[in-house]
């Protein structure tokens, strides 16, 4: 019998992971994510996808050091640099990108979706690179690793920053099997099933199934594998969201008998993977309003939900040991 038991091995100390997802560009939420390691005393940080922000706010320079912008349906006329700083801070919390421009530059973008998309990618990639660098800086000298991946809302262009900027503490884990501790590995898939918004990294359920199967073929012992699948299992309660009419733009909630209709938007392939492989634990995101847990045989799957827009970091701490989930705690930081 070894004198010191390996971390995460049966009979030893459990490995504690902190999982969060869907922070969509929110700066304070990401910073909280990095600080969660020390705050919660965990061994690793796992991110489940959807790093990119959703909106781009042009801040147009006006006369005599003023700026104009629109946010949350309200016009903002910023007359001092301090107001501009506060405004940008609010955008950071909401996860919106912004850029200052002259009126002519604004008009160059207005109405040209391809230019807007390119600007999104430029700003998102730069922000993600900063985030990766911040993670490396904050976690330098510690044994803590942060596992990052994209989700369906992230573009491949933006996600390039993960591989380009990661050095030591940051592990880009999507579509790979990575080691979590001496006893467990993690499989990560960032795709989702089709959504009403035609997000960049949607795949059909069968395609997701193929990716999962290919990935899991590399896992020697699935019972000692953590599944970090962005898309939650279908009809599990972790994927319940409003049903939308995608024939209009933006998509509109479907109303029956005066109330919105809710349904499960998850993945059948993920459900089958949880049932078939019976991994240590399932970690999922994608549906922000569906916080909860669900059992699949011996496996518990979690979705901590997301409140990034409020600057709140929703997550879950899971403790694993010898292929077993020994404890969990939903968090709201």
């Amino acid at each position: 019998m070894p004198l010191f038991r390996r971390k995460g091995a049966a009979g030893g100390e459990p490995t504690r992971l902190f999982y969060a997802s869907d922070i969509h560009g929110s700066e304070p939420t990401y910073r909280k994510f990095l600080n969660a390691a020390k705050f919660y005393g965990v061994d690793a940080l796992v991110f489940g996808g959807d790093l990119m922000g959703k909106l781009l706010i042009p801040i147009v320079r006006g006369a005599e050091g003023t700026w104009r912008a629109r946010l949350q349906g309200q016009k903002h006329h910023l007359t001092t640099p301090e107001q501009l700083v506060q405004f940008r801070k609010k955008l950071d919390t909401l996860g919106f990108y912004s850029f200052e421009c002259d009126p002519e530059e604004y008009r160059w973008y207005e109405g040209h979706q391809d230019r807007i998309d390119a600007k999104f990618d430029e700003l998102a990639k730069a922000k993600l690179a900063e985030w990766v660098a911040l993670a490396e800086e904050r976690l330098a000298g510690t044994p803590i690793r942060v596992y990052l991946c994209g989700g369906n809302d992230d573009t491949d262009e933006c996600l390039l920053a993960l591989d380009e900027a990661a050095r030591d503490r940051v592990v880009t884990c999507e579509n790979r099997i990575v080691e979590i501790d001496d006893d467990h590995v993690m499989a990560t898939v960032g795709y989702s099933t089709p959504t009403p918004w035609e997000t960049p990294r949607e795949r059909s359920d069968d395609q997701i199934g193929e990716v999962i199967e290919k990935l899991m073929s590399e896992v020697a012992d699935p019972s000692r594998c953590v599944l970090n699948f962005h898309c939650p299992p279908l009809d599990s309660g972790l994927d319940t969201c409003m049903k939308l009419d995608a024939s209009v733009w933006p998509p509109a909630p479907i109303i029956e008998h005066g109330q919105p209709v809710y349904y499960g938007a998850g993945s059948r392939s993920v459900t089958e993977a949880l049932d078939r492989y019976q991994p240590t634990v399932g970690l999922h995101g994608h549906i922000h309003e569906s916080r909860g847990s669900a059992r699949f045989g011996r496996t518990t799957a979690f979705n901590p939900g997301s409140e990034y827009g409020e600057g709140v970091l929703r997550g879950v701490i899971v403790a694993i040991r010898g292929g077993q989930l020994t404890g969990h705690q939903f968090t709201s930081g």
Partner: protein
Amino acid sequence: MAEAEAVVPQVFTRRASRLVRVMSPYSAFIYNILTMGLIFPWTYVWAPTAFQGSNLVLGILFAFLFELPIALAYTWLATSLPRSGGDYVFQSRVFGGGFGFTVVFAFFVVWILQWVALSGWLMATLGLAPTFIGLGVATKIHAFTSWGTWCATSGGIITISILNALVSLVLLVSGFKNYVRFQYLMWYAILASFGLMLILFFTTSHGAFVSHINSFAASVDGTKNFFGAAKSAAAHAGVNFNPPFYLFGTLMVAPIAWTSLQWASYSVEQGGEIKNAHVFRNQLFIIVGSLAVTAGLLILLAVAMRHGIGQDGILTASSGYWLGNSNALIGGAILMPNLLAIALTTSPVLIAIIGFGYILNSFQIVCNCYIGCTRIMVAQGLDGLLPDWFSRVNARLKTPVNAHVAYFLASIPVIWAFNKVADWSTKWALGVTFANGAVMTLSALAAALLPYRARALYQASPGAKFRWGNIPLVTVLGGLGFALGAFMVGSFLFVKDLGLAYSNGKTPYIIVLLTAVFGLLVYFIMRTFRAQKGVKVEYAFAEIPPE
């Protein structure tokens, strides 16, 4: 430079922005009205003799004005935390998890068990008894009258209350969509019922009312000159039929009417990913608009009753409830507003319409109890403050069956005690308004402190733009709401004729204290239990510093 002034930039989106068209607020507006208890009778049967000389119309108006800043404060809270809203989250965020859990678990989850009992009581005494008694008179089928009379007995009320809770349990557990279909029916039924009542009261003269009620009582109980005898007995019991205007009494009508209007903030959820001014305005419309409409309808009913049955009719009816004047009962049933309206018609169809609306709205109340409290229990279970068992969602039915079943079982002894313990179903009935009002008053305070205790959260919300001078407007409104709510909560605690102080005994206060202690106890037990398993429940609320 002039060119720059002309540029009002739009927000740039990408297709994957997950924008959702903002829902029409009308559906939520309508269902908020449904939740606010148009049928609650206490303003009309409690206040008039408990506070003789009070003006019901003014009292309801006071209740509206007192509730308004609370409702506005909830608008800020709802749009600051749209995804996981609710009093438990609001208070945990501002005051800390232990406080938020204790207050909401004790004064919502536990106390709303009394609402389950009240819902059954309303179903029996306000819904079934008047309807069947009325049908018995209109159709001359004696079985209806007997059945209606039985519904108003203690045994009848308890049986109906348990069945009411059980049917609600089965409906909700079977899937929320089934309840949604039913709710649609309930809305139209209560509208028809309420509208018909107003028409009957407004088209009746006092003389016609006396004639009708005497004939009605004679058909049910064989009583001759019912109204004269009831009024005489009321006078003997202490009713002054020409009291001077009583301002304090009118103010005390407000807490009673608050039983209905405090639920203005019930619908605090909204869908959609992006918060914006439309959403903020929609929430204002839903919460404040539904409050105003409901208050208006309650006032209209007071005016209609005054027209149709006169002040002496209102006072006589009230004496049967508050002063225990048994001569003012028909078939053992209290003269609730709908029974008075039923007595004005001989049409079984109109009676059925009035009765059906009240029966369904009573059923709506118990459903709301389950929906709200199981949602809280699931959230508290996920946070580790209740056993995991409560938060489990049934894989097949997709509903938290365990939480529903637990709530049903817990309600049975409360239903029994509510109807067996002397004075509980009359004098102490509004203890639940006190408890729930306390939660809402504290949430108003949470709103007032939101800009200071949860600064980043507040700054990110669409309501952050609004200020009164240098003070966030939510602080002003929340502070005002807290003060006015505290006035009403304090009234329940200390004004004799609002219930808790009625018997001059310590029992009601002990119950209040014990409930709070129970909530605190559950918190500490669960915290200790989880800590032994290496889980810190504080992590469910503790904010991580971003720097």
